[in-house]
């Protein structure tokens, strides 16, 4: 397989970095490092047999996802993550303990053992709990926005969700984005064009040159970025978030990158050609992000090293707490699927 070129629409440059600012870049890189550290630990725990169910990582997508999480307003926006959005979750305010509790089966996690791992969410904190059916969150976020419109509280709010290239083949994605466009909702959708949907290459997934072509078809604003660059991610996603927030309707951001892990930790990703891994698409956004900050003078290598150490401590603590906690007790479970007594 030949390595595709990245159509870099927004490239890393000092001028675009200046519009982002030092603080946002530093915060985003810290979130990316924290996410990578957590996920590395989860992968180890999985291999050690400590995790029930699958482990799905966002390795290589931290800049794309984390930038969105950092650009959203934690106090009012909506963020519906998918399976490779640990960085976005952390950046949007999800505590590490939610992740470790859910993966390690603690009854104190947000899903109480009733659902696992990446399905976790806290809808009351504007973080919907994803289901496995790709694309199905697009319309849910649209509904959360329409509710706010009816309640008179939509002004200034953005709803965001993430999918991969494979999810853009689903009916749910199409129906949801079309609906959001018809309603001119402030929705931002990130499409991680990460070259594979599980093992299926993008050539077997869609026939358009770029997934960005789809945005025009829906009447949706769009931008395509090099998602291996932190500056590109922050610049491009900021443009989209600002456009949505200021009333320009849904915005799609297509991020070109390579998934740097298997579909899940059960998958070694052996179908990914070495040429692709060695291409620009295969650049590790975390390592590249460190270089970007250092070159811009926004952080020193020593500072970044201290962030890494801090992240390791935070992850250790979150894992240690969750490991001490009990799992759910089937004899204390109420086994109720509806909230109203007598309705089952």
């Amino acid at each position, binding site marked *: 397989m030949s390595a595709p070129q990245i159509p870099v629409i927004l490239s890393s440059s000092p001028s675009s970095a200046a519009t982002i600012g030092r603080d946002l870049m530093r915060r985003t890189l810290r979130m990316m490092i924290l996410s990578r550290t957590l996920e590395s630990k989860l992968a180890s725990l999985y291999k050690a047999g400590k995790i029930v169910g699958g482990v799905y990582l966002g390795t290589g997508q931290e800049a794309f996802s984390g930038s969105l999480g950092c650009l959203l307003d934690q106090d009012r926006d909506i963020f519906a993550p998918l399976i490779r959005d640990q960085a976005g979750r952390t950046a949007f305010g999800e505590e590490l303990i939610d992740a470790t509790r859910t993966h390690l089966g603690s009854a104190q996690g947000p899903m109480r053992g009733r659902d696992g791992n990446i399905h976790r969410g806290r*809808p009351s904190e504007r973080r919907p709990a994803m289901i496995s059916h790709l694309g199905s969150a697009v*319309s849910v976020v649209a509904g*959360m926005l*329409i509710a706010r419109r*009816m309640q008179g509280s939509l002004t200034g709010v953005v709803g965001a969700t993430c999918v991969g290239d494979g999810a853009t083949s689903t009916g749910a994605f199409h129906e*949801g984005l079309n609906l959001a466009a018809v309603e001119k909702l402030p929705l931002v959708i990130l499409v991680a064009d990460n070259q594979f949907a599980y093992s299926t290459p993008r050539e077997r997934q869609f026939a358009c040159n770029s997934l960005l072509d789809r945005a025009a078809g829906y009447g949706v604003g769009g931008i395509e970025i090099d998602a291996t660059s932190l500056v590109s991610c922050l610049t491009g996603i900021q443009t989209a978030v600002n456009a949505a927030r200021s009333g320009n309707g849904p915005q799609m951001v297509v991020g070109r990158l390579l998934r740097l892990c298997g579909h899940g930790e059960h998958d070694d990703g052996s179908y990914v050609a070495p040429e692709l891994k060695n291409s620009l698409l295969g650049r590790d956004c975390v390592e590249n992000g460190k270089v970007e900050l250092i070159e811009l003078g926004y952080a020193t290598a020593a500072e970044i090293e201290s962030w890494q150490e801090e992240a390791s401590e935070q992850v250790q603590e979150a894992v240690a707490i969750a490991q001490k906690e009990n799992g759910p007790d089937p004899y204390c479970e109420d086994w109720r*699927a509806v909230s*109203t007594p*007598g*309705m089952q």
Partner: protein
Amino acid sequence: MSVTYIDAIRQAQLDLLREREDVFLYGQDIGAFGGAFKATKGLQEEFPERVLDSPISEDAMVGMAIGAAISGMRPIVEMQFADFSSVAFNQIVNQAGTHFYRTGIPVPLTVRMPCGGTPGSGPFHSQMVEALYGHYPGLVVIAPANVSDAYHLLKEAVLLDDPVIFCEHKFLYRWLKSDEIGEPGLSLGQARIARPGKHATVVTYSAMVHEAVRAADSLASEGWEIEVVDLRSVKPLDLDTVIASVARTGRLLALGEAFPWGGVTAEVVSRVVAEGFHLLDAPPLRLNAKDTPIPYHPDLWASHRPTPESIVEKLRELLNF
């Protein structure tokens, strides 16, 4: 002045819109057009912000309503035909149906399903869906058989904090009339004795209640007194009322318009056998539609679903055991 079944459905939605600011309606052609069956006629004029036309996107319609429901609203989604809800199946059973169990946050969503057959409607505009959705956890499934229930059960559905599949029968829309909507009687979850009797019990719901009563009327001239139980909601299923009736009659016919494999009638028979075996004087019987797609031609359609004649025949088999 009479009120039809569909008038009651329209009136319930109008009253809900007037009484509560968190209620809104979403569906195809429900705005200025008033819906394919006119269940929302004139409602957008009074509530332009809360009666919205949707794209032809059943999956997204329900997904959107779920998002709104977990954000403080009480949406009513109109499926143009219950058959089309197959496109929304994932959002209904996997998103709405699992949400409370998974997250502790209920989804106060009502999906109105114009279901059941009418002559000439064919395989894709006639289906019953109550067994399909009743199978999945987390959903309440209602199937009103009369004008009063169409009104009061719809209001109860919308005020319930959980997702409700509201199966309204198209055949009853304009055919079924009442002098008035009337006061609320039984609560959601309670079955009703539609016709008292002592020789056999027919347990049914929706439009088949009327076919069962016709069958019972025709057997009355021969001295048979058939009791007809209208379930009103198939989930929850009021087994107490069913068992009490079987205890009186000793004989059970479970009747439904849905396809015969599994479903509500199988559930009723299974539960009665398990919990009231000693009450039965004869093997319980089931009568459903035939196990083929629903035919288009009125003559075929009329033989596909149970009729008063086929119900009488089945009841004779039950009574003669």
